[in-house]
C-alpha cells in the first residue's frame, strides 16, 4: 500500500528529478523527510513494481532515432512463435497481444526508416506473415506518463 508520503514522492519525482549533487537530499527536503528515507522509499517502490524506472527519458527523434507502431494479424496457433521472432529484435521495445484484429501490436525504434523497413521485412520473412501495417505517427500530441497519484 502507498502511504501519503509515497504519493507525494511519486507526484514529485514523476516529472522532475533534480539534476544535482544530492538529488535525494533535495527531494527529501521538499517533502520533509531525509534524503536516506527518500532513496529508501524509491528503492521500495521499484522493488514492489509501483515504479518502473527512475532516470532520464529521452526524445529519440532529437538523437536521430525514429520509432513506429506496427500491427499484424497472426493466427492463434502461430502466436507464440511469431511473438518470439518479433521480441528477439533489440529494436522492438513493446510487443502485445491485443483483442480483435489485427491482434499483435509492437513498437520498433531504430536509427532510420530504412532500418525499420529492413526489420519489418525480416519479421515478415521469418514468420511468413504479411502484411505488417507500419503505422508511422503523422502527429504526436503527448508522450508522457505523469499520472496524479492518490485521487
Amino acid at each position: 500500500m502507498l502511504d501519503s508520503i509515497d504519493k507525494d514522492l511519486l507526484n514529485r519525482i514523476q516529472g522532475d528529478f533534480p539534476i544535482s549533487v544530492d538529488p535525494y537530499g533535495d527531494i527529501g527536503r521538499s517533502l520533509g523527510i531525509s534524503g536516506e528515507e527518500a532513496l529508501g522509499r524509491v528503492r521500495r517502490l521499484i522493488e514492489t513494481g509501483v515504479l518502473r524506472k527512475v532516470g532520464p527519458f529521452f526524445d529519440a527523434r532529437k538523437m536521430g532515432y525514429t520509432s513506429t507502431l506496427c500491427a499484424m494479424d497472426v493466427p492463434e496457433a502461430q502466436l507464440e512463435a511469431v511473438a518470439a521472432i518479433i521480441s528477439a529484435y533489440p529494436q522492438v521495445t513493446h510487443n502485445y497481444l491485443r483483442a480483435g484484429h489485427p491482434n499483435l501490436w509492437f513498437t520498433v525504434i531504430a536509427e532510420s526508416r530504412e532500418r525499420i523497413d529492413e526489420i519489418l521485412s525480416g519479421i515478415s520473412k521469418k514468420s511468413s506473415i504479411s502484411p505488417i501495417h507500419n503505422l508511422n505517427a503523422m502527429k504526436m500530441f503527448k508522450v508522457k506518463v505523469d499520472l496524479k497519484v492518490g485521487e
Partner: protein
Amino acid sequence: MEPRDIELIRTLQREDIFLMPRPFEEAATILGWELEEVLGRAVALKEAGVIRRFGAALTPRNAGFKSNSMIVWQVDDCRAEEAGTRLSQHQRVSHCYIRPSFEGFPYNVYTMVHGNSPEDLKKIVADLSALAGTSSCRTLDSLKEYKKSSPVYFPKSLEPAGA
C-alpha cells in the same frame, strides 16, 4: 550529437546508478569525468530537449490505475488534429497520436488511457468520446505482454572500432 554527450547518454541509461545516494557522482566515476561536467551536460541535454524529462515512470496498474487501455478513434482526417489536441489534454490520457488507418481498420487517432477501475475507464471513454466528437472507437485491451523494455540508445556494440 557530440561524442561526449553520447558517452554521457550511455551512462545515464544505467538504471542502477539512480538507486544510489549520489547518481551523478556515480556517473562521473564511471566516465572518469569531473562531477561538474556531468551535471552541466545533463542540464544542457535537458534544456535542448534531448532529455525529455528526468524523473520516474510509474507502472500504472501498480500505482492504482487498474484499468489501462489503448483506445483508437475514427475521426475524419480533416478533424483529426483538433480531436487529438483535445484528447491529449485529458488528464488520464498519457499518449496520443494520429496514425494512418488501413483496410478493415478505419481508426486514426490513438490514445493510451488510464482508469482506476473498469467503471472509471468507461466514464473516461464517455468524456473522451465527447472530446473527440465521435463514438466510433475501439478498445484494444492487452491480452498478453510479450515484451516491454526501455529502448537502448547508442549501444556499445554498434560503436565503430576506434570511435
